C-alpha cells in the first residue's frame, strides 16, 4: 500500500501520466471520428490515474506546507543557512545594525543561549497556490463525472417543432411562437431568433432563444439546434425548428473547480514565499534567503541589503 502511494505521489509518475494523456489526445484528433477515444478506457484510465496522482500528491504535501508556513524553524544551524540558495557571512556586522537597516519585512526574533536569531517571511499564501490549483482540477473532474452520470434528464434531448406548435418537455410545455432570421445586406444570415413561450404548471414565461443565448428553466438548458431552411428564402417560413434540451448537474462543480484552478495557478506563479534567516555567528552574522520559486529579483534585494550592511560596517569602523 505504501509503495502504491509512493508511486502515485511521485513527480515522475505524474509526468509519465501527462505524457500518456498528451499522446492519447493527439491520437484522438488525427482521424475522423477519433473522438470516440475520449469516452474509452484508453483515455479514462490514465485520466483516473491523473486524478489519483493529483489527489495523493496534494494530500501528502498539504501538512508539511502548513507546518512550514505556520511554524517555521527560527533557531537554525549554521549549516542550514549555508545550504540556502542565497547565503553570505558578514563578519563584524551586528544584529542591531541589521534591524536598523532592514525595512519591509516584519522580523520574528528568538533569543537562545546568547545567540539572536532573526526570521522574516513574505508571501506565505503563495505556498498554497499549488494545493488550491490541484484541488480545483479535482473538483472540475468531479463535476465532469457528475455531469456525465446525471446529465440529460429529459427523455428526448432534441425536439423538433413547427411554428405555432407546442410540445411537452419534461413536465412543462414549450411552444414555438415565431422564428425569424435576420440578414446582412449581403444576404448572409446575421442571427436566428426563436420566440418561445414556456408554460410550467400555472406559470407562463415568454422568451427569445438565439444562438448565443439559450433559455434556462429549472436547470434545463434549451438552445437552438437547427431549422429547416427548405424554401425559407422565398417564403420566409420554416417548417420546423429544432431545439436541444439538456441538463448538466455537474456544471456548478465544473465552474467552481475551474475558478479554483485559475486562482491556484495565479497564486502559485505570482506570489512567491520568500524567507530570510539571520543569525549571529562567530563575530558576525550569517544571512540566508530562499524562495519557493527562485526569484532573481528577491535575491538581488537581499544582496543589496548585504551591501548596505557592509557599507554601514565600514563606516562604523572608520569612525572608531
Amino acid at each position, binding site marked *: 500500500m505504501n509503495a502504491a502511494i509512493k508511486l502515485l505521489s511521485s513527480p515522475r509518475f505524474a509526468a509519465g501520466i*501527462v505524457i500518456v494523456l*498528451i499522446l492519447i489526445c493527439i491520437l484522438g484528433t488525427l482521424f*475522423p471520428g477519433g473522438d470516440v477515444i475520449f469516452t474509452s478506457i484508453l483515455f479514462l484510465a490514465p485520466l483516473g490515474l491523473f486524478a489519483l496522482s493529483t489527489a495523493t500528491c496534494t494530500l501528502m504535501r498539504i501538512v508539511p506546507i502548513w507546518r512550514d508556513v505556520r511554524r517555521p524553524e527560527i533557531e537554525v544551524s549554521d549549516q542550514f543557512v549555508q545550504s540556502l540558495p542565497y547565503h553570505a557571512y558578514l563578519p563584524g556586522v551586528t544584529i542591531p545594525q541589521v534591524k536598523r537597516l532592514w525595512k519591509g519585512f516584519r522580523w520574528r526574533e528568538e533569543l537562545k543561549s546568547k545567540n539572536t536569531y532573526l526570521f522574516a517571511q513574505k508571501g506565505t499564501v503563495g505556498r498554497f497556490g499549488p494545493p488550491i490549483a490541484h484541488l480545483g482540477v479535482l473538483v472540475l473532474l468531479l463535476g465532469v463525472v457528475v455531469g456525465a452520470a446525471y446529465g440529460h434528464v429529459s427523455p428526448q434531448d432534441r425536439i423538433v417543432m413547427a411554428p405555432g406548435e407546442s410540445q411537452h418537455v419534461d413536465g412543462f410545455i414549450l411552444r414555438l411562437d415565431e422564428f425569424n432570421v435576420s440578414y446582412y445586406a449581403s444576404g448572409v444570415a446575421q*442571427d436566428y431568433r426563436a420566440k418561445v413561450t414556456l408554460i410550467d404548471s400555472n406559470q407562463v414565461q415568454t422568451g427569445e432563444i438565439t*444562438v448565443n443565448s439559450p433559455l434556462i428553466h429549472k436547470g434545463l438548458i434549451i438552445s437552438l439546434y437547427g431549422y429547416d431552411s427548405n424554401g425559407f428564402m422565398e417564403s420566409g417560413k420554416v417548417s420546423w425548428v429544432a431545439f436541444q434540451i439538456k441538463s448538466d448537474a455537474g*456544471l456548478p462543480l*465544473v465552474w467552481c473547480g475551474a475558478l479554483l484552478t485559475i486562482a491556484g495557478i495565479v497564486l502559485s506563479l505570482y506570489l512567491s514565499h520568500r524567507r530570510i534567516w539571520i543569525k549571529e555567528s562567530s563575530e558576525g552574522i550569517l544571512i540566508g534567503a530562499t524562495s519557493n520559486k527562485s526569484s532573481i529579483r528577491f535575491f538581488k534585494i537581499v544582496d543589496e541589503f548585504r551591501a548596505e550592511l557592509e557599507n554601514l560596517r565600514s563606516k562604523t569602523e572608520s569612525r572608531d
Partner: protein
Amino acid sequence: MDAAALEHLGFEIALGTYLISSVVLILHFATRKRRLAEMGFNLIAFGFAFQTVALALRWFYAGYPPWVNSYEVMSFFAWAIVAAYLALNVGSDYKSVGILVAPLAFVVLSFASLQPTNPTPLVPALRSVWLFIHVPITILSYCAFFIAFTASVLYLFKSKQLSEQGPAEELYRQTEGSEYAPSATQPESTGVLDKFTLSQLDDLAYKSVAVGFPLLTIGILTGAIWAETAWGSYWSWDPKETWSLITWFVFLAYLHVRAQYQSRSLAAYIAAFGFVSVMFTFLGVGYVLPLLQTYIGVSSGLHGYAGGSAIAGSVLFFGILAAVLFLLFKTRKKPPSVNHAPTVEDDH
C-alpha cells in the same frame, strides 16, 4: 483613399519593415554590433505603429474586431508577438530577442497576405461578447509562449556554446555570481548570447510561461463557457479544444519539471517543443487537419477561420515546424572530444 486602401497600405509598410528588421537583426547576431540591435528594434517599432493603425482601421470599417477570418487572425497574431516583444523591452533591454520575433512576424504577415482580405460579417454563432474575450486572450497566450520559445532556444544555444568552450569555462560562466551582481558588460562583444546569462534566459522563459499559462487556462475556460451557451456543451473534444488542452498539458509539464528537477535544459526543451503544440493549436488544427483528412468537425464553422486557404496555412505551419526543429537540432551538444585531460599513461 478609403479605409480599406489605407489599411492595405499600413499592412504593406509593416510587412516591409518587419522584413528589413529581420535582416538587420540577423546581421546583429552575426557581427555582434550593438547598433544593429538598436536599429532592428526601431524598425520593428516603426512597422508596429503602422500595423496598429491598419488593424484599427480594419476594426472600424469591417464592424467587428480584427480576429475573425484567416487574414485577420494571422495579422493579429503577428501584431501581438511584436507587441509582446515591445512590452518586454519596456524597462529592460531584450532587443536582441527580436532575432526570432521579426522573422516570425514577417512570415506570418506574408501568409496573411495570401488569404482573402474581404471582411466576413459575423455568422450568428460569433455574435457574442465572448468573441472579445476568448479569442484575444488565447492569441496573447500564444505570444507569451513564443517568447518562452525564443528564450529557451537562446538558452540552449548558450548552454551549448559554454559547454564547447570547455567544462571549466562552462562552470565558471554559469556561476559567475552574475545573478546577484551583474557582471560588467563587454561593449565590444554584445551578441545575443553574451549579453544574457543562462539564468536570465531561463528566467525570461519561465516568466513568459508564467504569463502564458494562466492566459491559456482562462482562454480554454472562456471558450468552454462560450461553447456551453452556443452549442449546449462546454467540451466536445473537437480538434481545437483538444489541442489547446494538449498545449496546456505541455506547459503544465514545463512548470512542474522546472520546479521539481532543477533541470533547466529539460525545461527549455519542453518549452521549445511546446511552441510546436501552440502552432498546431493555432494553425495546424484549422489548416493541416482538414488537408490530412476530409474532416468535418463539430465546430469547423467556428474554429476554422472563415475564408482561409488550407494550403497556405499548412505551408506556414510546416515551415515554422521545420524552422523549430532545425533550431533545436543546432542546439544539441556534441559528445566531448577525445583529447581531454592527459591520462597517466601519456605522461612518461
